[in-house]
Protein backbone atom coordinates (compact mmCIF):
# COMPACT_ATOMS: atom_id res chain seq x y z
CA UNK A 1 0.00 0.00 0.00
CA UNK A 2 1.56 3.31 -1.07
CA UNK A 3 1.47 6.59 0.80
CA UNK A 4 -0.54 7.95 -2.12
CA UNK A 5 -3.72 6.36 -0.74
CA UNK A 6 -3.51 8.16 2.63
CA UNK A 7 -5.65 11.12 1.67
CA UNK A 8 -7.97 8.93 -0.42
CA UNK A 9 -8.49 6.61 2.56
CA UNK A 10 -10.35 9.42 4.33
CA UNK A 11 -13.84 8.90 3.03
CA UNK A 12 -16.34 11.62 2.18
CA UNK A 13 -18.11 11.12 5.54
CA UNK A 14 -15.02 12.10 7.53
CA UNK A 15 -14.61 15.08 5.31
CA UNK A 16 -18.01 16.55 6.25
CA UNK A 17 -18.01 18.47 9.50
CA UNK A 18 -21.13 17.56 11.44
CA UNK A 19 -20.13 19.42 14.61
CA UNK A 20 -18.66 22.83 15.34
CA UNK A 21 -18.09 25.07 18.36
CA UNK A 22 -21.78 25.90 18.58
CA UNK A 23 -22.87 22.30 18.04
CA UNK A 24 -20.26 20.09 19.80
CA UNK A 25 -20.11 16.33 19.32
CA UNK A 26 -21.73 14.33 22.15
CA UNK A 27 -19.22 13.15 24.74
CA UNK A 28 -18.82 9.39 24.78
CA UNK A 29 -17.03 8.12 27.86
CA UNK A 30 -14.44 5.40 27.40
CA UNK A 31 -15.78 2.03 28.51
CA UNK A 32 -15.25 1.15 32.19
CA UNK A 33 -13.97 4.65 32.94
CA UNK A 34 -13.96 5.53 36.65
CA UNK A 35 -16.30 8.46 37.28
CA UNK A 36 -17.48 10.29 40.36
CA UNK A 37 -20.41 7.90 40.58
CA UNK A 38 -18.27 4.75 40.48
CA UNK A 39 -17.91 3.17 43.91
CA UNK A 40 -14.36 2.84 45.17
CA UNK A 41 -14.48 -0.88 44.54
CA UNK A 42 -16.69 -1.93 41.65
CA UNK A 43 -16.59 -5.68 42.20
CA UNK A 44 -15.02 -6.53 45.51
CA UNK A 45 -12.89 -9.61 45.47
CA UNK A 46 -15.17 -12.17 47.13
CA UNK A 47 -15.15 -14.40 44.05
CA UNK A 48 -11.36 -14.28 43.89
CA UNK A 49 -11.14 -15.12 47.60
CA UNK A 50 -13.58 -18.01 47.05
CA UNK A 51 -11.51 -19.27 44.12
CA UNK A 52 -8.33 -19.16 46.20
CA UNK A 53 -10.07 -20.78 49.18
CA UNK A 54 -11.10 -23.75 47.03
CA UNK A 55 -7.47 -24.39 46.10
CA UNK A 56 -5.96 -23.83 49.55
CA UNK A 57 -8.63 -25.82 51.42
CA UNK A 58 -8.44 -28.47 48.69
CA UNK A 59 -4.76 -29.16 49.36
CA UNK A 60 -5.34 -29.41 53.12
CA UNK A 61 -8.43 -31.60 52.60
CA UNK A 62 -6.47 -34.06 50.43
CA UNK A 63 -4.29 -34.79 53.48
CA UNK A 64 -7.10 -34.67 56.08
CA UNK A 65 -9.69 -36.70 54.15
CA UNK A 66 -7.35 -39.33 52.69
CA UNK A 67 -5.84 -39.75 56.17
CA UNK A 68 -9.36 -40.10 57.56
CA UNK A 69 -10.27 -42.75 54.96
CA UNK A 70 -7.06 -44.66 55.67
CA UNK A 71 -7.75 -44.62 59.40
CA UNK A 72 -11.48 -45.44 59.24
CA UNK A 73 -11.75 -47.80 56.26
CA UNK A 74 -8.34 -49.41 55.75
CA UNK A 75 -6.19 -49.72 58.87
CA UNK A 76 -6.88 -52.04 61.79
CA UNK A 77 -9.81 -54.03 60.39
CA UNK A 78 -11.35 -51.23 58.31
CA UNK A 79 -14.98 -50.30 58.96
CA UNK A 80 -15.51 -53.34 61.25
CA UNK A 81 -13.68 -51.69 64.18
CA UNK A 82 -15.76 -48.48 64.17
CA UNK A 83 -18.09 -48.00 67.11
CA UNK A 84 -18.68 -45.73 70.09
CA UNK A 85 -15.57 -47.08 71.83
CA UNK A 86 -13.39 -46.34 68.79
CA UNK A 87 -14.71 -42.75 68.57
CA UNK A 88 -14.16 -42.27 72.31
CA UNK A 89 -10.58 -43.50 72.00
CA UNK A 90 -9.85 -41.18 69.11
CA UNK A 91 -11.42 -38.05 70.60
CA UNK A 92 -9.55 -38.59 73.86
CA UNK A 93 -6.65 -37.01 71.96
CA UNK A 94 -6.70 -33.29 71.13
CA UNK A 95 -4.80 -34.12 67.96
CA UNK A 96 -7.75 -36.03 66.46
CA UNK A 97 -10.24 -33.49 67.81
CA UNK A 98 -8.42 -30.72 65.94
CA UNK A 99 -8.06 -32.98 62.87
CA UNK A 100 -11.80 -33.69 62.75
CA UNK A 101 -12.80 -30.11 63.56
CA UNK A 102 -10.58 -28.71 60.79
CA UNK A 103 -11.81 -31.38 58.37
CA UNK A 104 -15.45 -30.59 59.22
CA UNK A 105 -15.10 -26.83 58.70
CA UNK A 106 -12.95 -26.98 55.57
CA UNK A 107 -14.99 -29.75 53.91
CA UNK A 108 -18.33 -28.05 54.65
CA UNK A 109 -17.17 -24.64 53.41
CA UNK A 110 -15.43 -26.20 50.37
CA UNK A 111 -18.56 -28.20 49.52
CA UNK A 112 -20.93 -25.30 50.17
CA UNK A 113 -18.95 -23.02 47.89
CA UNK A 114 -18.84 -25.74 45.25
CA UNK A 115 -22.59 -26.21 45.37
CA UNK A 116 -23.06 -22.41 45.31
CA UNK A 117 -21.19 -22.42 42.00
CA UNK A 118 -23.37 -25.25 40.70
CA UNK A 119 -26.56 -23.38 41.69
CA UNK A 120 -25.24 -20.20 40.05
CA UNK A 121 -24.56 -22.18 36.87
CA UNK A 122 -27.80 -24.13 36.49
CA UNK A 123 -30.62 -22.35 38.38
CA UNK A 124 -31.70 -19.57 36.05
CA UNK A 125 -34.80 -18.06 37.68
CA UNK A 126 -33.93 -15.54 40.42
CA UNK A 127 -36.45 -17.08 42.83
CA UNK A 128 -35.08 -20.59 42.33
CA UNK A 129 -31.55 -19.37 42.94
CA UNK A 130 -32.63 -17.51 46.08
CA UNK A 131 -34.37 -20.54 47.58
CA UNK A 132 -31.70 -23.06 46.64
CA UNK A 133 -28.94 -20.89 48.08
CA UNK A 134 -31.00 -20.11 51.17
CA UNK A 135 -31.48 -23.83 51.74
CA UNK A 136 -27.80 -24.49 51.07
CA UNK A 137 -26.56 -21.84 53.53
CA UNK A 138 -29.06 -22.92 56.21
CA UNK A 139 -28.08 -26.59 55.93
CA UNK A 140 -24.38 -25.68 55.90
CA UNK A 141 -24.51 -23.49 59.01
CA UNK A 142 -26.64 -26.08 60.83
CA UNK A 143 -24.27 -28.95 59.97
CA UNK A 144 -21.10 -27.03 60.86
CA UNK A 145 -22.56 -25.95 64.22
CA UNK A 146 -23.90 -29.44 64.99
CA UNK A 147 -20.58 -31.11 64.17
CA UNK A 148 -18.59 -28.56 66.16
CA UNK A 149 -20.90 -28.98 69.14
CA UNK A 150 -20.55 -32.78 68.97
CA UNK A 151 -16.74 -32.64 68.90
CA UNK A 152 -16.52 -30.15 71.79
CA UNK A 153 -19.18 -31.68 74.03
CA UNK A 154 -18.38 -35.36 73.42
CA UNK A 155 -18.73 -37.33 76.65
CA UNK A 156 -17.15 -40.83 76.69
CA UNK A 157 -19.06 -41.62 79.91
CA UNK A 158 -22.46 -40.66 78.54
CA UNK A 159 -23.74 -43.95 79.95
Amino acid at each position, binding site marked *: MSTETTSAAVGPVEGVTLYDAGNPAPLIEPPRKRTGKTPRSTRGNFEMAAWLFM*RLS*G*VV*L*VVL*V*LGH*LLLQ*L*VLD*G*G*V*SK*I*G*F*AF*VAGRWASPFWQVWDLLM*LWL*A*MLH*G*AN*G*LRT*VVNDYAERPNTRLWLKGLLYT*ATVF*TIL*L*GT*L*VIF*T*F*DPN*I*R
Partner: protein
Amino acid sequence: MPAGTLYRGREGMWSWVAHRVTGVLIFFFLFVHVLDTALVRVSPEAYDDVVATYKTPIVALLEYGLVAAILFHALNGLRVIAVDFWSKGPRYQKQMLWTVMAIWFVLMVGALYPVLGHAVRALFGS
Protein backbone atom coordinates in the same frame (compact mmCIF):
# COMPACT_ATOMS: atom_id res chain seq x y z
CA MET B 1 -30.01 -32.37 25.87
CA PRO B 2 -30.40 -28.59 26.08
CA ALA B 3 -28.21 -26.60 23.74
CA GLY B 4 -24.87 -25.49 25.04
CA THR B 5 -24.28 -28.18 27.67
CA LEU B 6 -21.61 -29.90 25.60
CA TYR B 7 -18.59 -27.65 25.54
CA ARG B 8 -15.61 -29.02 23.66
CA GLY B 9 -15.77 -32.59 24.88
CA ARG B 10 -12.63 -34.62 25.45
CA GLU B 11 -10.45 -34.71 28.57
CA GLY B 12 -10.84 -31.10 29.67
CA MET B 13 -14.64 -31.03 29.69
CA TRP B 14 -15.27 -34.54 30.95
CA SER B 15 -12.86 -34.18 33.88
CA TRP B 16 -14.70 -30.94 34.76
CA VAL B 17 -18.05 -32.77 34.62
CA ALA B 18 -16.72 -35.64 36.74
CA HIS B 19 -15.26 -33.16 39.24
CA ARG B 20 -18.69 -31.53 39.66
CA VAL B 21 -20.63 -34.79 39.94
CA THR B 22 -18.21 -36.33 42.47
CA GLY B 23 -18.08 -33.05 44.43
CA VAL B 24 -21.87 -32.85 44.79
CA LEU B 25 -22.10 -36.54 45.78
CA ILE B 26 -19.38 -36.19 48.42
CA PHE B 27 -21.04 -33.04 49.83
CA PHE B 28 -24.38 -34.81 50.23
CA PHE B 29 -22.67 -37.73 51.95
CA LEU B 30 -20.96 -35.25 54.29
CA PHE B 31 -24.35 -34.03 55.59
CA VAL B 32 -25.41 -37.60 56.34
CA HIS B 33 -22.04 -38.40 57.90
CA VAL B 34 -22.12 -35.44 60.32
CA LEU B 35 -25.67 -36.41 61.31
CA ASP B 36 -24.78 -40.06 61.98
CA THR B 37 -21.70 -39.05 63.96
CA ALA B 38 -23.85 -36.67 66.03
CA LEU B 39 -25.55 -39.77 67.45
CA VAL B 40 -22.56 -40.22 69.80
CA ARG B 41 -24.22 -37.40 71.78
CA VAL B 42 -27.45 -39.43 72.01
CA SER B 43 -26.19 -42.78 73.26
CA PRO B 44 -23.51 -45.36 72.46
CA GLU B 45 -26.27 -47.76 71.37
CA ALA B 46 -27.85 -45.30 68.92
CA TYR B 47 -24.45 -44.66 67.36
CA ASP B 48 -23.46 -48.33 67.16
CA ASP B 49 -26.84 -49.22 65.63
CA VAL B 50 -26.38 -46.78 62.77
CA VAL B 51 -22.73 -47.68 62.27
CA ALA B 52 -23.85 -51.32 61.97
CA THR B 53 -25.55 -50.41 58.67
CA TYR B 54 -22.17 -49.08 57.44
CA LYS B 55 -20.83 -52.60 57.90
CA THR B 56 -23.42 -54.37 55.69
CA PRO B 57 -22.29 -55.63 52.25
CA ILE B 58 -24.53 -53.25 50.27
CA VAL B 59 -23.30 -50.17 52.15
CA ALA B 60 -19.74 -51.47 51.82
CA LEU B 61 -20.24 -51.27 48.06
CA LEU B 62 -21.49 -47.68 48.47
CA GLU B 63 -18.38 -46.96 50.58
CA TYR B 64 -16.22 -48.26 47.74
CA GLY B 65 -18.08 -45.83 45.46
CA LEU B 66 -17.50 -43.03 47.96
CA VAL B 67 -13.78 -43.85 48.02
CA ALA B 68 -13.78 -43.79 44.20
CA ALA B 69 -15.46 -40.36 44.15
CA ILE B 70 -13.19 -38.89 46.84
CA LEU B 71 -9.98 -40.22 45.25
CA PHE B 72 -10.94 -38.84 41.84
CA HIS B 73 -11.98 -35.47 43.29
CA ALA B 74 -8.77 -35.24 45.35
CA LEU B 75 -6.38 -36.23 42.53
CA ASN B 76 -8.16 -34.18 39.86
CA GLY B 77 -8.30 -31.24 42.30
CA LEU B 78 -4.51 -31.35 42.54
CA ARG B 79 -4.44 -31.39 38.71
CA VAL B 80 -6.70 -28.30 38.62
CA ILE B 81 -4.31 -26.54 41.02
CA ALA B 82 -1.39 -27.48 38.75
CA VAL B 83 -3.26 -26.16 35.70
CA ASP B 84 -3.94 -22.87 37.52
CA PHE B 85 -0.60 -22.25 39.21
CA TRP B 86 2.05 -24.12 37.18
CA SER B 87 3.13 -22.22 34.09
CA LYS B 88 3.19 -25.41 31.99
CA GLY B 89 0.02 -26.78 33.61
CA PRO B 90 -2.43 -25.97 30.79
CA ARG B 91 -0.08 -27.52 28.21
CA TYR B 92 0.11 -30.81 30.12
CA GLN B 93 -3.51 -30.97 31.37
CA LYS B 94 -4.28 -34.08 29.29
CA GLN B 95 -1.18 -35.95 30.39
CA MET B 96 -1.93 -34.96 33.99
CA LEU B 97 -5.50 -36.31 33.68
CA TRP B 98 -4.23 -39.68 32.46
CA THR B 99 -1.71 -39.68 35.31
CA VAL B 100 -4.61 -38.97 37.70
CA MET B 101 -6.59 -41.85 36.24
CA ALA B 102 -3.61 -44.23 36.52
CA ILE B 103 -3.00 -43.33 40.20
CA TRP B 104 -6.75 -43.54 40.83
CA PHE B 105 -6.87 -47.02 39.31
CA VAL B 106 -3.93 -48.29 41.38
CA LEU B 107 -5.43 -46.88 44.60
CA MET B 108 -8.86 -48.35 43.77
CA VAL B 109 -7.30 -51.79 43.30
CA GLY B 110 -5.50 -51.28 46.61
CA ALA B 111 -8.77 -50.30 48.34
CA LEU B 112 -10.57 -53.39 47.02
CA TYR B 113 -9.58 -55.74 49.83
CA PRO B 114 -9.62 -53.31 52.80
CA VAL B 115 -13.03 -51.82 51.90
CA LEU B 116 -14.84 -54.81 50.41
CA GLY B 117 -13.05 -57.77 52.03
CA HIS B 118 -15.32 -57.90 55.08
CA ALA B 119 -18.42 -57.74 52.85
CA VAL B 120 -17.18 -60.71 50.81
CA ARG B 121 -16.53 -62.65 54.03
CA ALA B 122 -20.01 -61.76 55.32
CA LEU B 123 -21.67 -62.91 52.10
CA PHE B 124 -19.69 -66.08 51.42
CA GLY B 125 -18.52 -67.00 54.90
CA SER B 126 -14.98 -66.64 56.23
